[in-house]
């Protein structure tokens, strides 16, 4: 009986091996997998009324340093491949303005500066892109940034008033970064 069972099992095994086959597989291909998503997010938004600009006694109507460690988070710093910082500046005030964003390291050293000179109303919507990575600024600027200093300067008088209903200056900033997950 054992012999019969053994023979049956052997026969089945032989049949399976005879019938079964497989295309050549290469599991090392997994090493070639490249996963590089592009993540988009707003970063910073500044809005100021013309009244604030007029009220400021000197040219600088706003200056503030923020802790900003989004870029030097370990995940971002290690996996960032390239990126673009998108800016939009909109001015409906009667002022010629200058807006500056400075990227500061932990010792408040300036790593990079983005400066926008804005004409008074009717100024067009100003869009600006700063590329980081190949062909652009060094990614180390982003990796080492721990603070942002945002400064707004009024380059005109502080008495004129725009004809717009709610005159204001708006600075928008967003980022689109490509990361390597694998």
């Amino acid at each position: 009986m054992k012999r019969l069972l053994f023979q049956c099992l052997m026969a089945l095994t032989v049949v399976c091996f005879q019938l079964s086959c497989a295309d050549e597989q290469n599991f090392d291909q997994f090493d070639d997998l490249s996963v590089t998503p592009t993540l988009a997010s707003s970063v910073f938004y500044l809005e100021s009324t013309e009244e604030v600009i007029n009220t400021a006694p000197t040219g600088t109507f706003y200056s503030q340093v923020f802790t900003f460690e989004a870029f030097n988070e370990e995940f971002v710093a290690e996996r960032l491949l390239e990126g673009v910082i998108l800016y939009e500046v909109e001015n409906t005030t009667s002022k010629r303005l200058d807006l500056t964003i400075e990227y500061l390291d932990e010792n408040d050293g300036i790593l990079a500066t983005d400066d926008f000179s804005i004409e008074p109303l009717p100024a067009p919507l100003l869009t600006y892109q700063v590329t980081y990575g190949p062909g652009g600024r060094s990614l180390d600027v982003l990796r080492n940034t721990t603070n942002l200093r945002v400064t707004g300067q009024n380059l005109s008088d502080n008495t004129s008033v725009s004809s717009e209903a709610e005159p204001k200056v708006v600075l928008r900033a967003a980022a689109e970064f490509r990361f390597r997950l694998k």
Partner: protein
Amino acid sequence: MRIASIILVVLFSGTATTFAQNKELMYDFYEIPQSLMINPGVKTTQKWHAGIPVLSGFSFQAGSSGVTVNDLFANDGVDFTTKVRERLVNGMSRRDDFSTTSQIEGIFVGFRGKNRPEDYYSFGMYGETDVIVYWPRDLAILAFEGNGGDNIGRSFDLGDLSLRGEMVNVFHFGINRKVNNTLTVGARAKIYSGIFQFQSTGNKGAFTTTQGQDNIYRTTVNADLQLQTAGINGISDILDEDTSNTQQELTDLFRKRVLLGGNLGLGFDAGFTYKLSPQTTITGSILDLGFIYNSKDVRNFTLNGSASNEGITVFLPEDINDLDNDLWQNLVDEIEEAIPFEENDSGYISFRPLKLYGSIRYDYGQAESTFSRDCGCAITVTEGTNSDMYRNSVGAQLFMMKRPRGIQPALTGFYQKRLGRTLALKTTYTIDKYSFSNIGLGLNLQAGPVNFYILGDNLLGYANVPDSHYASLQFGFNIISWNDN
């Protein structure tokens, strides 16, 4: 973190091979005692049977309704990232799944009642592992492509995350009763001893990046996600300690949980066989109508809430006197407060995957007659008369299983051939979500009192094994004694 790793390993195992739980070859193959486990009301003819411990029943099923191993890993010169993008990330839908089920029988014994020979009692113990992972399509696209570029405005469905898995040991006792010459009914009670369980089902939510109201982009998250785990924390603690006793501690933990020391549950099977005519039979069964109450070693994770953000915002003059320079951290804190990631150890109930079978069978060919023989193994066997045991059977079977995303059906046509009492063959053709070309073959060999069976599914898949969507194998050894019932 360790829990996540363990679950990932289990999930990866599940993705390597996908399984369904349909045992269409075994169903109503009443020459095999294990068919009682799929229909407690199956026709029984033996006086008693005893499965050879650990070898009486082993089943392993795997399937993938989406990609196959060959789709991704064939040495075809196509860029691997392109294959993953086209065939996996964009090629699979949220209804595609990877699943796996394996079962190993520890003990299975049955005997006919002395005072009530129409009753056949059976009891035993088996272990089962079942994992199903639905393809998280939107989350995969988010990971592969990100939310930027062309995906601005796209809503990623967080509800695509759906998975479930468990390992249980089952103690069971069943009664099969031949009510009359046309009807046989049966029922089986089960006690489940959970070894581990995890589930993340019924998730809802979305992640969306759109044009902002104030800023350039607005990111919105609505999340109602939950992962429930039981029994995994204890395993991960032992693995974390990583001492020289790790293997022993794991063995002790598994032994304890296998022997009713884990989370316990109750279940119920029922089935019938009814002869519409001498040659036409219908059968049906319901399996694993039960639950486990997970109260020990529970660790649940939730992510619940909603938040939108457009980055750091400064409005002047409102914020002119706000000298707090920690705006980024404040933003992160606000989001974490709005969508808290929390843990709890609340007990929960997990339902077993409910299964339903039904079949219609037509028997034909010359009926078997009484005969005796000496099997040559020092045991003289007298086999019983069974005037309605025909040589051939054809029929159809329906299988349905409750899965996290609804009922998973399968339809089978079969032909069965009996060559005396010694050999029975069954071949099936099954269509389900995994395959439209699933041809299976089962063999039952009765050599004296020794019974051996082997059942294999999707034989056409053997033409190129890595390209197969489904694989299934069951085999086992039993000792069977026959009587005249």
